[in-house]
């Protein structure tokens, strides 16, 4: 393994083991490059490196540090938000489970009274079948993707611990045939006993539980992915626990991702009879997803947002690629980190929600070097609008950005209230609302035909959001709402739009109108009940209601038109909005199967040599593996080694004949070059060609593109990849 002769001299590696090397590292002479993760607030009062006349490199490093700090701060806020949202969703389930645990524990304890004699024995012999049953909570997660529920079960464990239970979290890794029942017992003891012993013995647990300070609490075992456990091992474990239930009151909590039948298939009937089950259902993944999007992307509190294209990518990534909320959050985290790396001014947005953000922002902007300030006014969103702007302009621009963003989320929140009744997906509406092209189209049509709006109010074409767009569907929905729903929605809208008096006034008017109509309707209904002449009155009330609904729809339309300006239409939006969708895609979806083949087919694009430019022909100067791979494409699923080798050889040697031909024709000046090429190829003896071929085939094998010949077919290798 000689690496020292390479381009990169390695620092000493003492190979203490063949497969493990510890690198001894030298301390750098230069500055510290590692930023402090724990540093929460960016101290802007510190000296500005550029003002002090430090080098540009140091300035870059300083701002990179600031951006990293800003990322840590922003992402930890998003993480906390997500955690809070999920906690809010889960809390009722957790409380139900806790209530069930206390009741079951009480029951077991009352049962214990009958077996005082058995309790004194080191091994309790209980013959009563009912007393041998273990209370088991089955939590149906309604989600095939168990990854999303791992955190739910972690939270549940924490909640139960907080409420005074002994909790052990086990998973399918503990219930494998390889580890046996001893494995899960060992894991259980590890978690419960502070000083763990290696002996996997239930007697140890029994003696631990009989200690004074332990015996008043129930022991809860949480298994998050029950379906993936080994059935026989789990059954054995259950049978063992049931023998001891009187002495050690254990309760089980099973996470069930599919249905109860899966549990019936997993466990034999004699194990099932030991379980005294109680069902719980957790919130659906859709509801979780909606709440997360609402809290993270829609609410104005977030300091980082994604562009329309990125939003569409995230939606497609969620729907087509993975389908887990976890992956969605991870994608968002990657987007966030990429944003803070690529956008030099991104650190400006990190305190946007603080109360004294104006002062903070002004301080931050004032300390910016001229280079960054110029950069800000050269952003694509500012081009042609502001030239040679000042610090104040930038601060003003960011304030404007913040205001627009607040208005945008305000209207979107109002829309979402109605969407919830329609069971529409939040992510779809979010994508549509963030689309800048729809907005531009909408505002241009608004300018062109201002009078037409009132006339063609039902014609949805005036909205750039598309005739069948989600936003139009929501507005239409307001036309069909019942009085109760409408009144509730108007109330929530009032809460969201506190900032804008104009809308508040309109809402108040609408509410009074609605109340009046409601009273009127009630009165008329009463009258109609008395007179039994329903047709006349009901038609009246219907018309009145339609009037209110229409007005609400109009208000909604106006709000969308006037206040829901997508962030991408505002100058300086690049500072808080991430839009590099390709970068995100590359970081998230590494597709080695396709990419490695493309690398080989287009090797010259990466190597960038002048000799292999011709894309359509195989040239002897090309990378050997690339030639061999391209040649393999001409074969079927089995590649005849003889043919493959011969064709490779002919390609490699083709330079010889070509070079000779050129040599005859070429003028004297080029002789030197050609003759060197000729000598190169003449050096190629049979051994070298075979060696090159062998090496190329080995590399294809390392890449997993071909499989070596089998004993049955010694003259063929098998292709594993077929097309890109």
């Amino acid at each position, binding site marked *: 393994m000689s690496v020292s002769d390479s381009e990169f001299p390695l620092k000493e590696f003492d190979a203490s083991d063949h497969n493990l*090397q510890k*690198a001894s590292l030298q301390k750098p002479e230069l500055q510290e490059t590692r930023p402090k993760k724990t540093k929460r607030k960016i101290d802007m009062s510190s000296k500005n490196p550029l003002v002090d006349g430090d080098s540009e490199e140091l300035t870059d490093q300083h701002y990179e540090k600031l951006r990293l700090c800003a990322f840590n701060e922003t992402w930890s806020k998003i993480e906390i938000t997500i955690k809070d949202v999920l906690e809010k969703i889960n809390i009722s389930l957790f409380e139900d489970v806790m209530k069930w645990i206390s009741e079951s524990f009480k029951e077991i304890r009352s049962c214990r009274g009958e077996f005082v004699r058995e309790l004194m024995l080191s091994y309790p012999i209980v013959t009563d079948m009912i007393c041998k049953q273990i209370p088991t909570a089955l939590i149906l997660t309604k989600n095939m993707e168990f*990854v999303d529920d791992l955190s739910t079960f972690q939270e549940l464990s924490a909640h139960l611990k907080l409420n005074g239970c002994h909790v052990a979290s086990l998973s399918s890794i503990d219930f494998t045939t390889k580890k046996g029942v001893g494995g899960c017992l060992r894991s259980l003891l590890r978690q419960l006993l502070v000083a763990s012993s290696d002996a996997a013995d239930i007697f140890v647990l029994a003696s631990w539980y009989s200690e004074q300070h332990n015996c008043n609490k129930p022991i809860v075992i949480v298994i998050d992915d029950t379906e993936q456990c080994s059935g026989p091992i789990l059954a054995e474990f259950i049978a063992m626990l049931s023998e001891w239930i009187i002495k050690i009151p254990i309760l089980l909590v099973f996470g069930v991702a599919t249905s109860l039948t899966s549990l019936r298939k997993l466990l034999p009937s004699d194990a099932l009879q030991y379980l005294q089950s109680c069902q719980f259902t957790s919130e659906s993944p859709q509801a979780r997803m909606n709440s997360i999007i609402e809290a993270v992307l829609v609410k104005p509190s977030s300091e980082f947002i994604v562009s329309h294209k990125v939003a569409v990518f995230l939606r497609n990534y969620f729907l087509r690629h993975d389908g887990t909320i976890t992956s969605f959050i991870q994608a968002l985290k990657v987007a966030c980190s990429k944003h803070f790396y690529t956008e030099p001014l991104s650190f400006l947005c990190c305190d946007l929600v603080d109360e004294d953000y104006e002062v903070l922002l002004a301080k931050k902007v004032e300390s910016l070097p001229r280079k960054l300030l110029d950069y800000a006014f050269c952003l694509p969103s500012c081009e042609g609008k502001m030239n040679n702007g000042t610090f104040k302009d930038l601060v003003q621009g960011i304030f404007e950005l913040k205001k627009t963003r607040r208005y945008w989320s305000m209207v979107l929140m109002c829309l979402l209230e109605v969407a919830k009744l329609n069971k529409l997906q939040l992510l779809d509406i979010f994508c549509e609302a963030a689309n800048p092209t729809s907005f531009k189209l909408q505002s241009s049509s608004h300018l062109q035909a201002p009078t037409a709006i009132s006339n063609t109010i039902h014609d949805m074409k005036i909205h750039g959001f598309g005739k069948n767009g989600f936003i139009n569907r929501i507005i239409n929905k307001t036309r069909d709402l019942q009085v109760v729903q409408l009144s509730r929605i108007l109330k929530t809208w009032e809460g969201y739009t506190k900032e804008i008096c104009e809308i508040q006034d309109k809402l108040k008017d609408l509410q009074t109108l609605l109340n009046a109509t409601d009273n009127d309707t009630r009165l008329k209904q009463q009258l109609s009940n008395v007179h039994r002449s329903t047709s006349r009155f009901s038609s009246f009330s219907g018309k009145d209601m339609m009037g209110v609904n229409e007005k609400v729809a109009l208000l909604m339309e106006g709000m969308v038109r006037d206040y829901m300006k997508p962030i991408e239409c505002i100058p300086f939006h690049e500072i808080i909005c991430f839009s590099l969708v390709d970068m995100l895609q590359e970081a998230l979806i*590494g597709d*080695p199967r396709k990419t490695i083949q493309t690398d080989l087919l287009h090797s010259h694009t990466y190597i960038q040599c002048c000799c292999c430019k011709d894309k359509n022909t195989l040239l002897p100067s090309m990378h050997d593996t690339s030639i061999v791979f391209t040649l393999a494409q001409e074969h079927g699923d089995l590649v005849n080694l003889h043919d493959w080798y011969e064709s490779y050889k002919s390609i490699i040697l083709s330079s010889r004949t070509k070079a000779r031909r050129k040599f005859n024709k070429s003028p004297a000046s080029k002789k030197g070059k050609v003759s060197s090429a000729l000598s190169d190829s003449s050096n190629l003896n049979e051994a070298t060609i075979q060696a090159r071929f062998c090496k190329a085939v080995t590399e294809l094998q*390392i890449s997993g593109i071909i499989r070596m010949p089998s004993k049955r077919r010694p003259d063929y290798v098998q292709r594993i990849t077929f097309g890109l």
Partner: protein
Amino acid sequence: MEGGQEQTREENADLDEEEQDFTFSRNYFLSKEHASGKKSTATRKLSDITLVDEQKLREAVAEITPKHEKEIKSLLRRYKDSYQQWFFQLRCGFNLLFYGFGSKKLLLEDFCNTSMVDNGVIVINGYLQSINVKQVAVAIAEVFWNQIKNNRKSRSKKSKSFDSEPIEDILSFLDREHCDDDNFVCVIIHNIDGPGLRNSDSQQYLARIASCSHVCIIASVDHVNAPLLWNKKMVRKQFNWCWYHVPTFEAYKVEGIFFPLILAGGVAAQSAKTALIVLQSLTPNAQSVFKIIVEHQLAYPKEEGMPRSKLYNSCRERFLVSSQMTMNSHLTEFKDHELVKTRKHSEGQDCFYVPLNTEALEKLLLEVG
């Protein structure tokens, strides 16, 4: 209108995806068809090529002058511009995974040497045949222990040994909150999809190591099917990868050491050679018994093999064995070394044959003789 266009674009994307799937399956069936069509023509054998002796071939492989050396070096130099970004991503809490054609060993190590100046680095060579993941965890823990000890500038110079501690304790030590939370150990895993790590247990442990808060992983994959090693929990919750496409076109020098050369005498010659080595270590009598089987096989190539009774008679005629017992002991020896195999004759009798082709057998006879 625009919304409509958007929709069409999305529909097109859908169609593209479908088209891709379709192309993939079509390619597969076309290649199958291609293969079956070719069967009609006489297949050529590897032995038709005049193969160079294995020793010479190995020497030639070692002496190959790489093509485009300069360009590859400049390609690697271009990646240096991304080091800053990679380091940023690493500090954001992601682990880095590099893929693309070519050995990434030098690139990764250079990146660590340039960027990880303050942290301990451990290198795992996944391309080797066997790797003890427990040892890896122990090594990481020891490096981390020394690191926090140095940072605290504590006087005790006692180094802690983690050898006897269970892996669970080591993992919780690496994940625990320490007073200096900024400390981390960087683990470079060359070929995390390599033969030594390609089992579920190793990957599970690596995933758990990767999820520890004081460990950063920088890994490379080379196999096209590498992502199949991980389930969603490992990918999303533990490894937390950020992918980077970095084709280097560097030769897989160390990675390919354990792979047999495809033209190294071919499979037949390889087994003939091993057969010869085994035969030479046997007694002359045993060699002669083997020769009888080979001669019979060469004389009657279409038969299932040499029946036991016939073999016994021939051996007795030549005074090679005196009893069934001695012949059986020879046969057991042959079978143990896979020199001879048995199959049933149509009449149910055991027949012995040598699992080599005619050419290899002829060569073997010459060499033994």
